């Protein structure tokens, strides 16, 4: 790929970097207890928590770094962090 003049680039390429590989703990979402408030999606620094068709939420593990903010903010305690076996 030819270099773009002036070290400029179009959007999209950050997605090439799958930051999920950094993760030590994985968030496990329980849709049964989820109140669908959406705080987990609102506060994720990666923007990788998404609403499902049912209106509950799930993380995109390609990018989730396992920080645990979603677990901390969930008012229903329906997210728990689990050590990930790789």
């Amino acid at each position, binding site marked *: 790929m030819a*270099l773009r*003049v*002036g*070290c*400029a*680039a*179009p*959007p999209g390429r950050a997605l090439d970097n799958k930051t999920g590989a950094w993760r030590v703990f994985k968030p496990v979402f329980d849709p049964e207890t989820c109140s669908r408030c959406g705080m987990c999606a609102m506060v994720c620094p990666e923007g990788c928590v998404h609403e499902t068709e049912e209106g509950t939420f799930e993380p995109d593990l390609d990018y989730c770094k396992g920080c645990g903010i979603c677990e901390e903010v969930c008012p229903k305690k329906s997210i728990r962090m689990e050590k990930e076996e790789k």
Partner: protein
Amino acid sequence: MLEFMEGSHAVAEIVKRCRPQVIAAYPITPQTHIVEDLAQMVANCELDAEYITVESEFSALSACLGASAAGSRVYSATTSQGLALMFEVCFNVAGMRQPIVMTIANRSLGAPLSIWNDQQDSISLRDSGWLQFYAEDNQEAVDLHMIAYKVCEDHDILLPAFVCFDGFILSHTYEPVALPGQEEVDAYLPAFTPYQRLDAEKPLSFGMYATPEYYTEFRYETDRALYRAKESFIKAGREFGEQFGRDYSALVEGYRLEDADTALVAMGSICGTAKDAIDEMRDAGKKVGLLKIRTYRPFPGPEIADALSGVSTVAVLDKNISLGGGGAVGTEVKAALYGSGAAVYDYIIALGGRDVRKRDVAAVVDLAEKGKGDMFYGLRTEVL
């Protein structure tokens, strides 16, 4: 039609006709008359531009960068300490490939503080990636601004340029100048078409950082663009000649060099004095000529070697000093002439406004022919 006017006013008039859309500048002697004139033109609705009265030269060039990236033709002017304050932004603008044109009313750098002319300021930015064009007189200063915009905005180049003219010696001096009319300038210099710009319709990230995988290649690309600017300058200079009758298709220009044994090499207004001195020396039977460097960046090394292939002695007049390393132009001329057999001597001269007369030029030629050089010329040893 020739009009008699101050150099700074002539520059402001031609800048106006180049139709910059954003101007950001900070006042500094001896650049002030240019930006005062432009501010008045904007106030009078003669120039349809945003004039940003920034709080420093650092912000002046930073604002120019933003405006250029957003898609406007921009202009600034500065000198000396102001250019030094822009140091960091200068490298940034070149690396981000923004075609900004900036006038440098050349002045010395402190300490000691001096408002007077030499070329230390722009020469100190030689590694920054800006094209550098030097004017011998105010006509050339006017013409080089049009050429500079044309070269910088060439989508094959995309670089910024200094148009350098000597502070006070040119900037504050009245000379007859032919000022092209607006229609003529428009015919030569088309409206600005940005290669890429900040635009919500087509988002791009500008000025990203480069890891070691990419940094060298970005530097290489910018370096290649500077070398490509030689051809672009020659083309723009030739077209200028065809339209206006003043040809600038040469990166270096010889004066009475054809059969010369000794050649002076210089940049800027000192060339005019040197030409008069050469005429007198020629009358006295000395075979002396001058090579004027018009484009210091890109450096015309092969062109210099070609132009000086017949001379045995070369005397470089350096209005700067790379402290602890000699004159900057002399060092590069020596490299360009390496292996040619010519004896090349460097003279640090005309620093901080020290006047150079015809007899000084003749004295330099004498020193060179006696094999004495690589020295400060005209030191007042009585005060040392």
